């Protein structure tokens, strides 16, 4: 397959890749995507003291005025929580802090003293949204983290905006959360699959999509340790602990990247219950066990011989 024109830049503590079907429109697409990412960063970054989400966290127990983009991102996070029965929950912020994920991942202490207690999430039902007055309230002691859905939503919004601005098909990957919009290449968008978006895909593990989104959640990247125990960033909200290591990676294709991301993250949390849940939802997915064994659901294609 002919390599499409593309560009890459760092964003959200990870990397963005932008590809277009029209080489002359790549610059326009990149500029548009950067603008969307900047807006999401200002609204949803947990590592910026001036972001809306940090304002809400600091003001826990009181109503806090927020912007329209944050309200939109929070609504998507609450929707993801509702449709996954709380397996993807924006109130896991305190749990992540307790695990040591309290700063940009690049600066997390790679080991530390053993953890003695954990912080189960209070649950998304405790989040109050007053859309009419543009404000949000969470209980004292609660902490929001939109990391599971905001990046994927940003990819969806960026792809749509860039396709509109550039007038061609656009692919946006934000840390491996992929969204496409506009007319696709003739053979579709070719996307490799791996535990880490920064590594080349495993031989034979790649899919082509023509619309929507694709996301992969993995328990083998963003890992650190406390007391010699390996931790990762996908937290089971019910326990406040990292999700069990049933799957090393789950890739899901969906109508949008935010849906794909919510499903992939929930699948990691659900462990052995995930394949049946994905199948019932009609979501094509590839689940990779710790030993490398693969389970596919819905219409996920078989691997192509390398």
């Amino acid at each position: 397959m002919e390599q499409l024109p593309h560009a890459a830049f760092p964003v959200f503590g990870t990397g963005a890749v932008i590809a277009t079907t029209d080489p002359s429109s790549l610059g326009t697409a990149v500029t548009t995507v950067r603008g969307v990412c900047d807006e999401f960063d200002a609204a949803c970054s947990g590592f910026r003291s001036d972001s809306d989400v940090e304002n809400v966290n600091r003001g826990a127990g009181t109503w806090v005025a927020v912007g329209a983009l944050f309200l939109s991102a929070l609504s998507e996070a609450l929707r993801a929580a509702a449709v996954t029965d709380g397996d993807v929950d924006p109130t896991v912020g305190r749990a992540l802090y307790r695990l040591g994920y309290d700063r940009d991942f690049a600066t997390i202490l790679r080991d530390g003293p053993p953890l003695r207690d954990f912080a189960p999430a209070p649950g998304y039902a405790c989040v109050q949204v007053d859309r009419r007055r543009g404000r949000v309230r969470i209980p004292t002691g609660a902490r929001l983290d939109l990391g599971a859905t905001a990046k994927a939503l940003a990819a969806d919004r960026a792809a749509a905006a860039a396709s509109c601005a550039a007038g061609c098909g656009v692919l946006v990957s934000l840390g491996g959360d992929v969204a496409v919009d506009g007319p696709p290449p003739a053979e579709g968008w070719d996307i490799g699959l791996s535990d880490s978006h920064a590594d080349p895909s495993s031989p034979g593990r790649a899919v082509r999509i023509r619309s929507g989104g694709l996301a992969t959640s993995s328990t083998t990247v963003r890992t650190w340790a406390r007391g010699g125990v390996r931790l990762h960033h996908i937290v089971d909200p019910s326990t406040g602990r990292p999700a069990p290591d049933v799957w090393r990676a789950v890739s899901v294709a969906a109508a949008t990247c935010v849906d794909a991301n919510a499903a992939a993250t929930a699948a990691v949390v659900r462990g052995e219950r995930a394949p049946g849940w994905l199948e019932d939802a009609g979501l094509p997915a590839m689940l990779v066990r710790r030993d490398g064994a693969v389970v596919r659901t819905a219409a996920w294609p078989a691997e192509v011989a390398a």
Partner: protein
Amino acid sequence: MASDPIATRDSGLRRVSRITRSAFAGALVLAGALSALAARELPGRTSPPAGNVTRSHRGTSLLPPSGSATAPGFQAPSGQGTAPAPLQPPVSAPVAGSGGGPVTSGGS
């Protein structure tokens, strides 16, 4: 000339009646105004009907009741009704690729 005691009594009763009606009307207006102020300053929660209470593995969680705009924990995106839209499969299923594109989907 001495006043008619009956006329004096009737006049007094009319005054008492006017004062009572005025006080009642004033109380109604004041109660309405205070209710409106309280509703504006303290947006309430809508208690969902029993049928909308679902069990999560963590305990009881509340899905938005029909017509609720301020149910705790969830507010439907505008224009999408009251129930959260389920996760949607792609319009067309993915097909096998070659991995020759510039992008890899993976954890980050």
